[in-house]
């Protein structure tokens, strides 16, 4: 028998013009550095607000102050529902209904959806004994209020990232969230999953819960937000209605400088083919894929996550075998038994998950850059002289503009953009003729993104054939000579940037 779950009680719908949260003159200093200065900001109940800024602009410091983790400098005021505080602490912030969903979601993969949602209930049990029934009611209530459907008994570790995000939102709601911060909520979601997330956010809005998206890139969530606030170097640059902002303007506000998205127009008909696939097939992954990648060309490969892009890339890199079809390299048939064959042929693959697959974070830049080419660095005794490794690393540090104290610095001390360049350097050191880049700018902020694009173009100019895999349409549109569109394992179309508009390509991919 199923009872209909009770209605979620939220006393937020009272009409009032005072904002749910107001900040006045909030500042924060760490030693000599100013992290935040003179922030005045407000969030209305039921509002969807975007808080954007580059890495290091003060977003996370601001969230920590609002969540009570950090206390602001004297003279600032935090006003929650008309009550003035000079600072909050975590339990108080929680009691006031302020919840933060961190980028890593902070869920428990080994526990069930039910336990994750009702964890506050579980851990707040007054007797020390847990009340399964109360937990169930609480979880069902929250799920029903969001019109979300999740199997309560399944372990969270078995859910997709998008589903986990909904679990995290539910957990916030179950603890009576009135203001929900979501840190980089869309960074690991596909377009379709983002739609699901946005549907949930719409429900939150109706419930009177304010949602603040915190991000350094904002294509998807903008459509739902009313206002957008830009931080730069610890100061608030502007709070604007979303209707007055476009990508270009946002980039300018965030970085304080102008970036031109220029379309590189190349004609490549006369270039020699570098890597080609003929009717390449792996059942369940990709089917009858035929294309040619030319030397000096940047070929985009786009499509939704799960369209078979990464699977195709892995086959091109010899990590999986073709079932049918063939690969051609420099016009000659290429048989790859493993990725060692691919590397020997001159193919390099930079994975999307660079932290896990691309780098040894604790080792130095020199260690990371030289690991693929140690054979080449041997001296006559068969040993690798340290000087050769650091020499090689120094060469790439300067060629790719990696910012680091020296090449002995551990890679984990570098910023995301610089880490990505180290991965690139590691593969470029193998002197590849074909470079496959899988989502090279995920998690990289705008300024560094453009730096990476410049590197890609320079490499192409030097004759390297580049396959750029990305689900960000602007990325392939503005940086590729041709774009292949993959859908459900098939190559569904080829575009030359400049001929269709960016919108037309977006349309094709998401259709």
């Amino acid at each position, binding site marked *: 028998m199923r009872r209909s779950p009770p209605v979620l009680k939220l006393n937020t719908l009272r009409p009032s013009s005072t904002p749910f949260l107001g900040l006045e003159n909030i500042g924060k200093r760490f030693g000599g550095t100013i992290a935040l200065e003179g922030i005045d900001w407000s969030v209305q109940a039921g509002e969807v607000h975007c808080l954007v800024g580059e890495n290091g602009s003060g977003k996370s410091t601001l969230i920590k102050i609002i969540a009570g983790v950090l206390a602001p400098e004297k003279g600032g005021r935090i006003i929650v529902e008309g009550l003035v505080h000079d600072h909050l602490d975590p339990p108080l912030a929680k009691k006031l209904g302020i919840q933060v969903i961190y980028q890593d979601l*902070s*869920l428990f*993969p080994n*526990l069930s959806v039910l*336990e994750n949602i009702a964890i506050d209930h579980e851990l707040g049990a007054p007797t020390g004994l847990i009340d399964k029934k109360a937990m169930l009611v609480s979880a069902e209530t929250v799920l029903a209020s969001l019109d979300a459907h999740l199997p309560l008994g*399944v372990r969270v570790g078995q859910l997709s990232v998008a589903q986990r995000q909904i679990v995290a939102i539910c957990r916030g709601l179950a603890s009576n969230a009135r203001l929900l911060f979501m840190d980089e909520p869309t960074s690991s979601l596909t377009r379709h999953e983002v739609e699901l997330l946005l549907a949930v956010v719409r429900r939150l809005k109706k419930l009177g819960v304010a949602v603040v998206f915190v991000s350094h890139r904002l294509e998807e969530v903008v459509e739902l937000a009313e206002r957008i606030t830009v931080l730069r170097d610890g100061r608030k640059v502007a709070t604007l209605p979303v209707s007055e902002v476009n990508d270009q303007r946002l980039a300018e506000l965030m970085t304080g400088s102008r970036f031109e998205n220029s379309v590189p127009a190349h004609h490549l008909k006369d270039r020699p083919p570098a890597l080609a696939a003929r009717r390449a097939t792996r059942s369940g992954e990709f089917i009858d894929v035929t294309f040619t990648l030319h030397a000096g060309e940047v070929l985009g490969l786009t499509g939704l996550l799960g369209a078979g892009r990464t*699977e195709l890339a892995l086959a091109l890199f010899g990590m999986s075998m073709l079932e049918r079809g063939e690969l051609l390299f420099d016009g000659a048939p290429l048989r790859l038994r493993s990725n060692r064959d691919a590397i020997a042929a001159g193919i390099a693959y930079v994975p999307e998950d660079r932290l896990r697959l691309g780098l040894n974070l604790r080792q130095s830049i020199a260690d990371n850059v030289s690991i693929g080419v140690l054979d080449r660095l041997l001296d006559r005794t068969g040993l690798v002289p340290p000087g050769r490794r650091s020499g090689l690393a120094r060469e790439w540090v300067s060629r790719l503009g990696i910012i680091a104290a020296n090449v002995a610095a551990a890679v984990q001390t570098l910023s995301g953009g610089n880490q990505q360049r180290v991965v690139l350097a590691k593969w470029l050191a193998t002197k590849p003729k074909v470079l496959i880049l899988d989502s090279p700018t995920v998690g990289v902020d705008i300024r560094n993104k453009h730096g990476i694009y410049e590197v890609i173009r320079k490499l192409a100019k030097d004759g390297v054939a580049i396959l750029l895999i990305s689900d960000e349409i602007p990325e392939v549109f503005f940086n590729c000579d041709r774009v292949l569109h993959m859908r459900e394992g098939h190559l569904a179309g080829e575009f030359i940037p400049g001929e269709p508009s960016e919108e037309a390509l977006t349309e094709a991919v998401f259709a």
Partner: protein
Amino acid sequence: MRRCTNPIAFLFRRTETALAAVIIVVSAVFSLASPYFLTLSNATDLIEANSVTTILAAGVFVVLVSGGIDISFAAVASVTQYVAALMATRYDWPVLPTVGLACALGVTLGIINALLTYYLRVVSIIVTIATSSIYYATLIYVTGGTEIYNLPDWWTNRIIFFQTKTASGDVARITLPMLIMVAVVLMTHLLMTRTRAGRQIYAFGGNPEAASRIGIKILPLQMHVYGYLGFLAGLAGFVQAHRVHQAVPTAMFGTELNVVAVAILGGASLVGGVGSMGGVILGVLLLAILQNGLNLLGVSYFFGVVVGLTILISISVTGYAEQRISLRRRPETS
């Protein structure tokens, strides 16, 4: 959710069901090979003989769920057993203070492990290797390795709650160690499934960072976990001396790996956050049955090999099943 059509696959979805299936198969084989295997008296002997292992495994299971590992419990059990025996023989302490002292000392030594792990920020296996070595060495040094044989009667007398003669003329008994074991198993099961502390232990084992973010206090939690194992080690030391009628400083030496192995065989993971008391019992049971069956067949020298193979096979089978499940559920990754 996808329905699982293959019954074998279904069986291996959960460690517990897989273990139960293997136990049934192994038992069937042994009962065909030896008529004595599937008798009531053999069953009760088996349970009594594994009571100490089960009590310790319950404690180790809790530590494993929290994401730690403790191998000092055997040393703790030996120390508490010896100290308690000293009090009972030299100062004629009665039963309750003696058992109380054993358990309190166990809790203390366990909490020392927790404090060291927490404050030194060293992984628990290193800390407990060190403390284990210290506890053992101190015990041997202080006692000179002397055994205590003259334990009081209340300690060594067999306490039988129920006894029956089976048709074949053998005797089946329910004894004190069995009752203590059952009580410990129930207590641990309730602790881990029904109490706030237990769920905090699962949460912390699954994602320590998230656990501290939602306000779980780590130090009390760790003290609880390692203290609980210490408490059970005290109890196990007492039961062990009760069974063998003497207190020997090295009585428990070398049982560490076996106990950790049954807990892991039962589905607890070295990474933490998973496992159940029921699974651990099945783990104990499987190894006990294997040993017992091989003994009855007169091929007990195979036991080491069989144990090793069982652990390897079961871990790889359940690991493989786990991998299959997560691959099936998340086709969109990659």
